[in-house]
């Protein structure tokens, strides 16, 4: 079916799927990326901290 015809016959579905669902998807992806960034940053900081502790134990640092 032509999109124009479908759009005019189903305006609310068009609005929901086209705008709100896309916006919600963007928000969910953004939140997931923020959480992921925090997770990998914490991993990196812990690795650096542990490496520093090992150097101290070996008497290097």
């Amino acid at each position, binding site marked *: 079916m032509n999109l124009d015809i479908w759009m005019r016959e189903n305006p609310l579905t068009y609005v929901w799927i086209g*705008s709100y669902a*896309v916006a919600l998807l963007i928000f969910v992806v953004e939140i997931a990326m923020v959480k992921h960034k925090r997770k990998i940053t914490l991993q990196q900081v812990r690795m650096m*901290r542990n490496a520093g502790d090992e150097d101290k134990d070996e008497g290097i640092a």
Partner: protein
Amino acid sequence: MAINWFKYAAPTTFYGLAGKLVPWFAISAAILFAIGLYIGFAVAPTDAQQGEFYRIMFIHVPASILSMFLYLVMAGYAALGLIFNTRLSAMMASAIAPTGALFAFISLWSGALWGKPMWGAWWLWDARLTSELILFFLYLGFIALHASIDDPRRADRAAALLAIVGSVNVPIIYFSVKWWNTLHQGSTIKFSGTSMHISMQHALFTMLAACWLYSIAVVLARVRSIILERERNTTWINELPEVRS
């Protein structure tokens, strides 16, 4: 008793404050989104001219407003970082950019979906649409420029210049409907009032508040990761419970 107005201007203290604030803003945003969507779809009446298509407004207008507002805030933080050489200001500017870019994208996308049934075209080189597209490119340019320079402080300064210069685009977007003969409708909400139905106003302002609170929550969460990354060699970071565990 002397008040230290700049107590939270340091990453050390701001990190903890941001962590405490994120859940409050996030939950408030979720509640307001639910209320705004309910009012927008169940309470607000059908528009006489646009039918049901006008309901795109409840995400399009807040996204547009936030994209411009966040850019000004980002440029403000960038300017503070450039002038006072404060680390946290530059970190905040970097934290705001992705969220602002996403709101600009939502504005352009939802605007295209609104434009198709109203104007018969997904896109037109209208003044407001074009200037909003430029704003989106400015956000991307800020992020790309910052990422392209290895030294974070040099990256902050270079990106800050771009943000400050690009801020001239925001009043162009705002006044474009007045300065040029545009297809995009003029301001419905003015300081002198509005002709919008009251329930539409409620839905619009609720969704605007929801988007605002959401962006604060996300920016605060992002800046915490940026602080962790940039301050990773400091003692206070290594003593954090989430790092020690």
